[in-house]
Structures are given as structure tokens and as C-alpha cells.
């Protein structure tokens, strides 16, 4: 059982929320952090799911699962043997889910299409194919749908969500409203009118500018954009109400007290600049940040410092003190240079993190995780991070 005595900010956050959303720039260890937090949930006795909506199958890499068609109904928790192999004995469960753009769209259509005919019609629509296969930007919708389904199923006590890098993560949050607008009944009527009327006269009521634009776009794309799009809307129409309602619910949940947003960052200057922008974005959306995790921090190298910063003198003394295969001036010189570089890095990072922390509300904890040589590629590795993340281990 987790050590109850050293209850940290993050462990109480995990205890008291139903959904934890990890946000932040790419390459800062967000997926790993999300997976480790979810593992903590499972070890503390909660039925936990971790959802990644990143196109790269990173989570699969750290959880030892292979990519699959993400029909979430078929999801099974990780088998106990997998935990036992890493010396872990969870009292809860851990289920990892990957959202793949194409398969998620197809799965959603399969789930919601009222008849096989409509289903096939949608699959055959070029606009649908484009939207789901070739074009980017539709990922967030599907992630939302997966999240909605998980919440609806109600089989998880804790859902940890890993989001795509910064900019897209904000898109992810905005997705419900965007889709809502997109599915707005007036818009639908507008698009579907073209097929029912099958002529431009249907647009006589619309202003001429719009008609002109549509004509220009049709000329340019040759796609008969309207027909393709309106066909898509017509066939999908039956499914929209359900979609919209579910998204609305997810959106409400994300904004509610049941959801905690955790910003994952690194101490690199450009990453922190993005983190700051992201924090501003969250504030604007009316979401409050519950914690910050700073990965890859080098502050352990500041535990002791040389009295004199003269590398030559330090090298001299170290050369005399070394014993063994690397006991020579060349190695000593490198050791000193390497150490001073890392101290330099650590000091700069510390200054930047302090500066960043000053922009946060005082009650927002900033949890630091050191730069680890070996990336946690298994459950034991993810559990090893608990020492830093939640200040305790199983």
C-alpha cells in the first residue's frame, strides 16, 4: 500500500479527482508521467484507465502493450502477472487505451450508425475518408468520444488523460465547443439543403457573397465540395445529436471540480515559455491548474560545490585523489569539466523554474523529477518515478 504518512500534493490530487488531464509541450515526458500517475492510482486500489491521444504509440511502449483497434468495449485491464514481474501488487486495476484516428472514427461510425446501409454510405463518402484518414485535426474529436464513452461506462474510478502537445491540447479542450458549433442545427440545414434541392436555387436566400465563395471553392477544388459535404452531413445527421450531447457532457466534466489539470514541463527555456502560454490559455478557458510536474531537472548536482571555481586547481586536486582505471589527469579534467557544465545547467534551470513558479498561484505545487539516465520502459520503471512524483513508493 502507498505510504499514507507522506501524502504529497499529487497523491491527494489523484485521490480526490475522477479525471486527471496531463497537458504540456511535446517531448517533456508527458506520456510517461501520465502512465506513472495512472499506475499509482492502480496501486492505491482504484480502477484506473490511462488514455493517450498522441498519434505516436508511446504509451504502448511503456506499458508493454501492442497497438490495437481501440474499440474500448473490448479493453481489458493489464494482467496481474505483468505487475508481479515488476514486483508490484496493485489492489486496483490499470487499463491502457490508445486512440488511433482512423480506427476510432470507424469504430464510432460502427457504434452509432443506425443501419448497415447508412454505415456503408458513410464509409464510402470521400469527405468522410478525407476527414478520418488523410486530414489532421479530427483527432481531438475522437479522443473526446473515447473519454465520453469511458465516463459513460462508469467502470473506472480514475481516468488519466495524456494529451497531444501544447497547441493541440488546447484544441482538445475546445473540441466540444467547436464540434457543437460545427453541428449546430442551422449549419447542418445550410449544408444539407444543397442535396435536397439539388440546385443552386437553394441558396437564393443566402447572401451572394457566400454563394460566390462556394462557387469559387468548387471551381478550385473540383470536389463539388457542397455535395460531398452535405451528403456527409445528411448521412451522419442521425448520429449528431448523440455526439453533441456526449461531447457536451465531457466538456462539463472537464470544467468541473472532478477534473484536475496537471501541466507537465521541463526546465528548458522554450518549453517553459510554452508552458506559460499554455497556463494563460487554461485561465482563459476558465480551467485552473492543479499541479505542475517539472521533468528532467538536474538540481541533484548542486548538492556540493567547489570553494574555488578554478577548474585547473580542482583538476589538480582530483587527479591526486583518484584511484583506479580512470585515475589520470585526462579523466580528471573531463570529470571536472562535465561536473561544472551540469552545475551550470542546474543553476540556470533552477532560476527559470523559480521564475516560472512565480507566475503560478501560490497553492499550485511544482513537483521536480530528476533527469534519469534510463527511460522507464516498464512498470517497474514507472513505479520508480513515484518516489519523485508522489513522494513515496509501494
Amino acid at each position, binding site marked *: 500500500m502507498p505510504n499514507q504518512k507522506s501524502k504529497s500534493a499529487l497523491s491527494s490530487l489523484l485521490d480526490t479527482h475522477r479525471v486527471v488531464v496531463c497537458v504540456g*509541450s*511535446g*517531448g*517533456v515526458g508527458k506520456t510517461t508521467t501520465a502512465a506513472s500517475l495512472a499506475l499509482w492510482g492502480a496501486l492505491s486500489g482504484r480502477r484506473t484507465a490511462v488514455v493517450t491521444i498522441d*498519434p*505516436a504509440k508511446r504509451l504502448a*511502449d511503456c506499458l508493454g502493450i501492442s497497438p490495437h483497434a481501440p474499440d474500448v468495449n473490448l479493453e481489458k485491464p493489464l494482467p496481474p502477472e505483468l505487475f508481479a514481474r515488476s514486483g508490484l501488487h496493485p489492489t486496483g486495476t490499470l487499463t491502457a487505451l490508445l486512440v488511433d484516428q482512423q480506427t476510432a472514427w470507424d469504430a464510432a461510425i460502427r457504434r452509432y450508425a443506425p443501419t448497415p446501409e447508412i454505415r456503408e454510405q458513410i464509409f464510402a463518402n*470521400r*469527405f468522410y475518408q*478525407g476527414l478520418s484518414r*488523410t*486530414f*489532421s485535426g*479530427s483527432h481531438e474529436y475522437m479522443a473526446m468520444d473515447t473519454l465520453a464513452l469511458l465516463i459513460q461506462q462508469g467502470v473506472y474510478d480514475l481516468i488519466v488523460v495524456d494529451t*497531444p*502537445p501544447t*497547441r493541440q491540447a488546447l484544441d482538445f479542450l475546445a473540441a466540444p465547443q*467547436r464540434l457543437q458549433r*460545427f453541428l449546430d442545427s442551422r*449549419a447542418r440545414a445550410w*449544408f444539407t439543403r444543397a442535396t435536397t434541392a439539388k440546385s443552386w436555387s437553394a441558396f437564393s436566400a*443566402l447572401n451572394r*457573397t457566400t454563394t460566390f*465563395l*462556394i462557387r*469559387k471553392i*468548387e471551381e*478550385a*477544388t*473540383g*470536389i463539388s465540395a457542397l455535395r460531398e459535404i452535405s451528403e456527409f452531413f445528411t448521412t451522419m445527421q442521425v448520429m449528431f445529436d448523440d455526439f453533441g450531447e456526449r461531447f457536451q457532457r465531457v466538456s462539463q466534466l472537464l470544467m468541473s471540480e472532478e477534473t484536475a489539470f496537471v501541466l507537465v514541463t*521541463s526546465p*528548458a527555456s*522554450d518549453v517553459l515559455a510554452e508552458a506559460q502560454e499554455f497556463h494563460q490559455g487554461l485561465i482563459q478557458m476558465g480551467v485552473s491548474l492543479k499541479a505542475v510536474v517539472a521533468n528532467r531537472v538536474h538540481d541533484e548536482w548542486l548538492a*556540493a*560545490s567547489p570553494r574555488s571555481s578554478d577548474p585547473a586547481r580542482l583538476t589538480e*586536486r582530483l587527479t*591526486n*585523489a*583518484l*584511484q*583506479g*582505471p*580512470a*585515475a589520470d589527469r*585526462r*579523466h580528471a579534467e*573531463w*570529470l*571536472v*569539466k*562535465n*561536473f561544472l557544465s*551540469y552545475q*551550470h545547467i542546474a543553476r*540556470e534551470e533552477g532560476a527559470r523554474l523559480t521564475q516560472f513558479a512565480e507566475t503560478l498561484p501560490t497553492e499550485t505545487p511544482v513537483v521536480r523529477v530528476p533527469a534519469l*539516465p*534510463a*527511460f522507464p*520502459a516498464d512498470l517497474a520503471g514507472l513505479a520508480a518515478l513515484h518516489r519523485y512524483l508522489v513522494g513515496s513508493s509501494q
Partner: protein
Amino acid sequence: MPSVARTLNPALAALAKKRLLFFAGKGGVGKTTVAATVAFTLAQQGKKTLLIELDDSARAARFLGVAPTDQPTNDARPVSPSLFVLSTSGQIALEEYLQLIIPFKPLLRTIVESRAYQYFVAAAPGLKELLTIGKVWYEERKREAEQPLWDIIVIDLPATGHSLQYLRMPRAAHETFGGIISREAERIAAVLHDPEKTAVNLVTTPDELPVSETQDAYRQLTEELRLPMGALFINRMHLAPCPADVLRSTTLHGPLSPKERQLFELLLRCGHTEALETDIQTARLQPLQALSLPLIPIPFAVADTADKTIVEQLSLALTTVAAGPSPRTKKSARQRPHAPRASHAETSHAQPEE
């Protein structure tokens, strides 16, 4: 910079002959830094270079010391007489494109602000990617006195998942759409697929996930998209002079004050960690040795400030002093007996620290 003549890393020299250099990689591997460094280095070699970044964050511009502007612009901004930077996004490119088909400004404004337009853009998300790549192609075709305006264009793509969409769009659009867009997309695709003109480069770090994502991206780029490839840039290489084992069995002896002992122990542990990173990195990079791509290593930069000096420092790793190998190169080669094998190991890996 002091005007010491430097020659390009041979792999980079081959890239310098192209017209379009794309840079793709997982988020956070330093793709923007590498693209900016390559653009800077080519410009130093006298090439009139344009660096295009495909989002409006203007990070590459910041790396090169160009202050961000309030107004998103579609014009290249000068960094030096031979280096220009252009930050564009789908939104800007789309409006510029509409400007071409609807030259009347007030009408354009009305359209862009109309609900119908918003719906259309939302409904056809791929259009933005296509038009953004179209913008790159447009810059490639710019001529001044019948000569290309740019000798070379360096493009910083968004993180892999999204960037492949950009490279996929022209061909996909040619197949999906008809009319003008299809014809234009075909012409853009022809340039992208021309190995004389285009090279897609990958950027990674010696970390597990970026390496596996690089393998994936390489497979997609060569097998599915069939695009001409350039080089693989490995950023943030750790460069310890000996294996971790050697440092592990190295200890301290003799009279030492407790404070000094604590310091030296920390110092040894720090060296051991760096050596461990170097060892692990060698093993991790193994699968990438099999790809038929020249590897260009870039050392872990110490000064982590988003300014020009980083680009200048890293640029040293892509070039060597013209008059024979530099003393630094020799020294660093001797220092790293077990460094990962790179196909252009003779070029400088000089660590730009201090």
C-alpha cells in the same frame, strides 16, 4: 562570427545542393533548433537561405534573434543579408490563397469573417496543410532576374504526427480533389518527390521513444510517401570519454576533508551518470545505424538559452575549419573511443561547452 573559412560536414554538403530541406521529428527533440542551425550554417556558406516555420509561434525566428511581431505576416524577414525567416500557418496561407482568387479586399474580409467560411474551413481541415505546403512551393518558384530568389529553403515541420500530414497532402489532394487544386497539388507533389530538389531530414535525440518514432517516420516516409530522404540529425549527444564501468571502479584515496570528499564523490557520480547516458545512447542508436541515411551528430548544448549563440555554437558541429582538421576535432575524436559510429565521424563533434 570570426571569418574563419569552414567547410560543411560532407552529408550536409550533399544537402546544400537541394532546393527544399524539410525537417521532421518528434516534439521536443530540438527540431526547430536544428533547422535554424542548418539554415544559419548554409547562409554562412553564402547561400541565400529562407527558413520557413509552419506554425505561427515564431520560435525559429526567436532562435535566430528576430523579435516576434504582433502582426502575423506572410513576408520573409531578414536575419542577415543571406538569411531570411518566414513564420506561416495554415490560417495565414489560406487567407493569402483566397486573396489570389478574390483580389477585392472588402469582399475577402466579408468572406473570411462569414460563418460559411468558418464552417468550410472546419469541415475541410486538410485544406490548411495543403495550402501551407503550397506556400513553400510558391517561395521555391519565386524568381528574381530569372534566377531563383532563394538558393535553398529550410522548412521546420510540426512534430512528426502532424508533419507527415503536410508532406502527404499534395498527393492526397491530387487524388481526392479535382479542378485547380488537383492540378496545383500535382505540381507541388512533383517538386516534393524530386530527389534533385527535395530532401526530407529527420531529427532525433538518443532517447528511446524518439528513436522508435524516427524508425516509424523513416518507414512511412520511404515506403508510403516515397519521398527523397536527406540525413538523420542526432541532437543532444552525450560524449563521455570512457564507459561507465571504468568510472564505477574508480574511487577516491588519500587525505581528503569531508567537504572535499563529498564534492569529489558527487563529481564522480555526475561523470558516471554522463558515461551511463553515453553507453545507453550507443545501444539505443543501434537500430538507426541500419537506416540508409547519413547520421549527423549534434552535441548536447550546455547554454540553454533561446538565442543566437546556441545556433552559432551548434553550427560548429556541422562544419570543420577548411584548412585541415581542427585540433578540437582530433582531441574530441581521441576522447571518445567508444562513441557511436557515425557515417561522417571525421567531422567535428566539438562540445560547445564553456
